[in-house]
Every structure is written in C-alpha cells, then in structure tokens.
C-alpha cells in the first residue's frame, strides 16, 4: 500500500520528464548523448545531467519550481571530480542547455507564426474561411463531430411576411443544397414560420407555392414547418380553418421548435 503510494507520488515527475523527452523538445539522440556522457564520466556528469534535465523541465513547465538540491550537491560533486572532465562537462551542459533553450524558443515561435498565419488567411481570403475554420483554426470539437460524414443541420426561422425576403430565402436554400452537393456532405434544413410568415406556407396566400413544392421534392432533407398556434389563431379570427400547402408540416409552436432544435445542436438563423 505504502509502496503504491510512493510510486504514485513519484510518477508525476516521471511523466513530466517523459513528456518532455518524448514530446516537442528533445530528439532521442540528444538524450542518448547526455546519457553517454553520464555513463562515461561518473557522478559529476550525472549531476550535470540531472540538473540539465531539471533546468529544461522548469523551462518548459514554468510552474514547476527549479529544485535547489541539485545546486547544493554540485560543489560536493565538483570536489570529488575536479579538473578538466568536470569543466568539460559543465561546458557541454551549457552548450546543450543553450541549444535546448534555443530549440524550445524556436518551436514556440513557429507555433505562434502558424497561428498568426492562419488567422491572417482567415481574415484575408473569404473563400478559405470554410476550409481554414474547419481545419486548423476553428472549433476542434465540431471538426471531430463532422469527421465521418458531415451533416449540417440548419433551422431557418421566419416571422415576417416580406415576400422578397422569402424569395431570397428560397434562393439561399437552393444555393446551400448546391454547395452541400458539391462538397458531398449532408444538409438538413428546416424552415419554421410563425406569425405573419406563415403566409409562405398558407394554401390561400403562399407567394411561391410551386417553388416550395419543387424544392420539397428536389431536397428530401428540406422541411417546411408552420406554427400550429399561429394557424389556430388565424382560424379563430377568420372563423374557418386555414390550410397549409401539402408539402408543409405543422409544429406545435414555432418558437418552441426553434428552441428545441437549437438545444439539439442545430445551427439557428433568424431570417
């Protein structure tokens, strides 16, 4: 039990060292060079080596305070092994340390440059927005979610009876489906209309019934939905039922549907 605890206690520092060694900084040959030096020349080298590692670790992980014990032991080590080898080891460690620092620094710079470059592209070339956003720059999580076969789910919410806006909305939907087909991904679009916008789907007032019918036929994943509450209110006002186009469906409440879809992760656009 106590052994387990002890090794568990030791493990973090080991992990840090391993992450450091395997990760961005040290190619293995550099480590093996250090190891060779250590085995060839004894304790003083080992102390140098350890110190070196500690120094670099504390460099890479700023929060880890550099331990003082290494330093305290060095005079003793130096006392045992004097002369040239010790000096050589110190100089070697200095060179490697500086090189290591430089490497780390350069890597950091490269990463920064890459990010800057990506943001630059992103703001410059609009055509690249999608690619760049999907890829390096943007949300990593969505990228993963769409990795297999990407499916976009878009809810278009209308509550205004502007027929020009409706016509342009239908243009946009067609344009989106063309684009989705070009790029080979799935696209679910749901149009939700309520209040005055139910005109779009009212059998007696629809401004573009043929177009809606054609689009519903061309794009099976496109749904036109109307708010049942709005329709029953209209029916009360008119004293007769208000029918919707055969392609349209009813949802209990337009606003509730919009909220529901957003909660399900759909992209929401208020037209």
């Amino acid at each position, binding site marked *: 039990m106590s052994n387990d605890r002890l090794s568990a206690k030791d493990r973090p520092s080991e992990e840090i060292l391993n992450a450091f060694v395997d990760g961005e900084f040290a190619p293995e040959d550099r480590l093996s060079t250090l190891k060779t030096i250590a085995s060839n020349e004894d304790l003083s080298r080992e102390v140098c080596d350890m110190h070196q590692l500690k120094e670099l670790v504390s460099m890479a992980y700023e929060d880890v305070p550099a331990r003082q014990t290494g330093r305290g032991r060095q005079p003793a080590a130096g006392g045992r092994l004097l002369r040239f080898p010790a000096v050589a080891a*110190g100089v070697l460690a200095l060179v490697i340390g500086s090189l290591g620092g430089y490497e*780390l620094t350069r890597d950091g*710079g490269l990463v*920064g440059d890459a990010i800057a470059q990506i943001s630059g592209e992103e703001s410059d070339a609009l055509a690249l927005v*999608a690619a760049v956003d999907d890829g390096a720059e943007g*949300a990593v999580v969505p990228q993963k979610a769409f990795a297999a076969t990407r499916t976009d789910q878009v809810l278009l919410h209308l509550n205004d009876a502007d027929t*020009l806006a409706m*016509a342009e909305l239908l*243009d946009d939907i067609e344009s989106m489906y063309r684009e989705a087909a070009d790029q080979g991904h799935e696209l679910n679009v749901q149009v939700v209309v309520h209040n005055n916008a139910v005109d779009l789907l009212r059998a007696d007032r629809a401004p573009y019934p043929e177009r809606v019918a054609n689009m519903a036929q061309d794009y099976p994943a496109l749904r036109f939905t109307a708010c049942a509450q709005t329709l029953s209110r209209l029916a009360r006002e008119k004293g007769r039922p208000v029918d919707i186009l055969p392609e349209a469906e009813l949802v209990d409440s337009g606003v509730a549907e919009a909220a529901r879809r957003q909660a399900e992760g759909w992209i929401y*656009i208020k037209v």
Partner: protein
Amino acid sequence: MQRPGWLLAGALLLMLVAGGVSALLFTALGKPPVVGEPLRVVYHINTDAPDLHLNALRSLQNHIDGAEIEQALQIKVLMHGSGIHLLQRARSDPDLRSTVNALKRQDVRFLVCGNTLASRGLARGDLHEVEDRDVVRSGIAELTRLQRAGYTYIKP
C-alpha cells in the same frame, strides 16, 4: 576548493542564465499571437431599418470594448436581403459611413451576400467600399459556415 570547481560552478551558473533567458524568450515568442480562444461573432442584418442598423453597429462597438484587451477578435457583419441597404446608405450618410469605417479599422469584416446583389441587380460599386473578398456566395450558407466554425450568432 580549487579552480576547476569554481569553473564548474561558473559554467552551471551560465547554464542557468542561458536557460532563464531561453525560458523568457519562449514565453515571449510562444504566446503573443493568440491568447486562448479568439472572440468570434457574426452579426446578421437582413432588414432595412436605419435605426436598427445604427443600434446594431453601436452594440458591436460595445461588444469590442467589452472584450478582454489581449483577446483576439474575429467579428463579422453579414448583410443580405434588405440588410444590404446599410452599405447603400453608408455612401450618402456620413454618420453611418464613419461608424462603418471605424469598425473596419478594428478589423470588423462587412460581408455581403452575392445572391442578394444578383437578385437585386446591384453591383459592388453601389455599396460603400465593398471589395471582391467581401462578397460571399450565399448569406445564409455563410452564416451556417461561420456558426459551425465557432462563431456566435447575433441577430440585432
């Protein structure tokens, strides 16, 4: 202790200094371009309402002012349908124009829907300073793309 010992200590000290300097450089070079997630927001404007336009742009400025100083900003205004009147009016309305220009100087992008331009028979030149790269094929598709890329959607 003899000289070599001091030399060793000196060498180690130098190493410490080199390491410290490197660490400082690492911090300085590794961090500055982007700290954390940038603020990504898209404002959607598709109605012709002068008051709404001006209010929307003011909110946008407040939005920028309220962001963390070191936070990178990626803010876009997407106009389609009747919303493109904003940039039509900016040609004749100096207040609106200077508001737009001030936001542009803060790297806010004003994007225009190409479908809208086509369906309304407008050219880029009919709008205030719209370049080729500011025209997207479909406004709605662009809104989808931006939201998928992590942009927060705001409909003023």
